[in-house]
């Protein structure tokens, strides 16, 4: 707004709605702080290992349980492994689990939601399925799935790949229901709108209706639930690791680091607090981003 006020005759350059969304997003202080913290964490995880190139699995038995020092900025653990390197490696796994599981659950949720909302014949069975999944005891089932299928999957995909695949699929398969419900509601509303009627009157096939007219219009709720999905996936993964049912011991994730440090928390509380703070900060910032996005993507609030 300020650039146009100095030269009022200048025509505003065409801008997409995403610039409006960004303008509104910027007014939400919490979301902005959350975004910067999340970017910082991402940078630390992606760029950090290049600056601090100590292997997270390097065991140095002569330097066990060291406190903060120049050689080990965050100290070492009970096997003399560098905690900073392990935190960065753990963050990479935790956040990639979060992102992948979120994508899976959003894809499932969106597909089921759009199908249930658009095709009346599918609505009954798909929504019953959603209700059924909502009635499942999710945490016990997740624990079950992870324990029971750990062995065969690690055999066929390698210990790390197998567990990664298992955890991502398990989290994705148990967290799509909210998205499906929201998307279905939006699609049901959209179907009554004139532009959909117009598109249908010129004979648009269902596939193109969905891809061209329905999906772009339900993008905002999907984006919001995607952001919140990252947060809950990270929490679920770290909870599984914390219960000792996540990744294998020599494969650090934040939850695993916390779990490993709990036995010695009386002596070395920092080793518990660091991964815990990392998880909490990430989840908190992602939740704030989601909050800001929800406001920014809502055209009724935008511009106020």
């Amino acid at each position, binding site marked *: 707004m300020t650039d146009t006020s100095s030269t009022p005759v200048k025509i505003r350059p065409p801008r997409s709605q995403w610039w409006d969304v960004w303008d509104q997003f910027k007014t939400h202080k919490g979301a902005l702080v959350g975004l910067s913290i999340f970017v910082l964490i991402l940078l630390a995880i992606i760029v950090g290992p290049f600056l601090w190139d100590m292997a997270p699995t390097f065991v140095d038995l002569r330097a066990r349980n060291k406190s903060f020092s120049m050689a080990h900025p965050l100290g070492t653990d009970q096997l003399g492994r560098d905690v900073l390197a392990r935190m960065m490696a753990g963050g990479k796994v935790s956040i990639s689990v979060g992102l992948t599981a979120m994508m899976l659950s959003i894809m499932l949720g969106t597909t089921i939601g759009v199908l249930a909302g658009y095709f009346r014949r599918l609505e009954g069975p798909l929504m019953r399925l959603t209700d059924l999944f909502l009635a499942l005891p999710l945490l016990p089932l997740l624990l*079950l799935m992870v324990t029971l299928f750990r062995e065969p999957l690690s055999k066929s995909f390698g210990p790390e790949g197998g567990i990664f695949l298992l955890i991502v699929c398990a989290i994705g398969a148990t967290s799509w229901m909210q998205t499906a419900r929201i998307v279905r509601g939006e699609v049901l509303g959209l179907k009554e709108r004139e532009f959909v009627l117009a598109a249908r009157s010129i004979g648009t096939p269902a596939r193109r209706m969905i891809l061209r007219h329905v999906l772009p219009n339900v993008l905002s709720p999907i984006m919001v639930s995607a952001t919140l999905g990252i947060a809950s996936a990270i929490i679920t993964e*770290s909870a599984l690791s914390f219960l000792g049912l996540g990744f294998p011991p020599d494969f650090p994730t934040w939850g695993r680091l916390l779990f490993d440090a709990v036995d010695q928390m009386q002596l070395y509380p920092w080793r518990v607090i660091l991964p815990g703070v990392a998880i909490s900060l990430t*989840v908190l910032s992602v939740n704030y981003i989601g909050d800001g996005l929800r406001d920014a993507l809502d055209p009724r609030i935008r511009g106020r």
Partner: protein
Amino acid sequence: MLTLTLRRLLIAIPTLIIISLVIFLLLEAAPGDPLGEVPLTVPPEVKEKMRLALGLDSAWYVRYGLWMKQFFWVEPVHLWDALFGTHFGEGMQRVISFQSRQPVMQIIAERLPQTLTVVGLAYLVGVLIALPIGILSAYRQYSWFDNLGTFISMIGFSVPTFFTGVVLIIVFAVKLQWFPSVYDTTLQVTDWASFKMQMRQMVMPVTVLALYNAAQISRFMRASMLDNLGQDYVRTARAKGLTEKVVVLIHVLRNSLIPVVTVIALGVPTIFGGAIITEQVFKVNGLGQQLILSIHANDMPMVMTLTFIFAILIVLFNLVADLLYGILDPRIRYD
């Protein structure tokens, strides 16, 4: 109202049957062997006999049917016997844990009180904290209190319970030594001193769970109050000259509580899920800890029964929430 109740009940039954089938098939598809812990020195023919004794030789649908019969018929009969001293259930095969060879229900009955006291109290405390916070935040929207409440509740559901628990242990059990870090379930409450001991050991687990619940419920309370505060009937009540206290605490609060009550009912079963983690942190030997132990030991009857009980709780409280909504809000009768 009666048709609504009946219809919901009729939907709940097939849901539960499908859920039990899903859990059973999941356990069935898993490659884990309940005899995996048996030493290798045991000869194969003995192992085969053990397998027969556990009933693992029959087809899955036979075992599923058997489990269904045991869960829905034999166990209630035994409960009846235990309650009224009758002997109807003698000779009937109960659901037996592979691990401890005890009836599963007996283990659950032993562990249920621990879970219920910690979890139940935590939920109660959470609700009692959340309601006033929600009311006040809505009444003074965007005040410093509201902003603080929003921030704390954001932290409340972002920080995982296992981390809050561990931090509380480090601060209050290790550094300050105010509370014990491990929950002692052998403690019998007999006199004042042991009662105080019990209270002290319950403080931390209850705080962790209560904070987590309060964070969510207070948000719902706030949103619901805000919805109602803008309604016409509030303006009318004020115009009639009612005091602010009556307007807010009687007119608005009663209407705002309707959705909140259902949210509270829906939250009860999820609490048991959250308790799995909290019990692990504070070493409370409740149902959640038993579930994890049994999963590790491939104790299928125990896992199956426990998971199914969690499922029953979810379905039951969904039903309760639905019915409560129908009772409290006459506008919403689905028939």
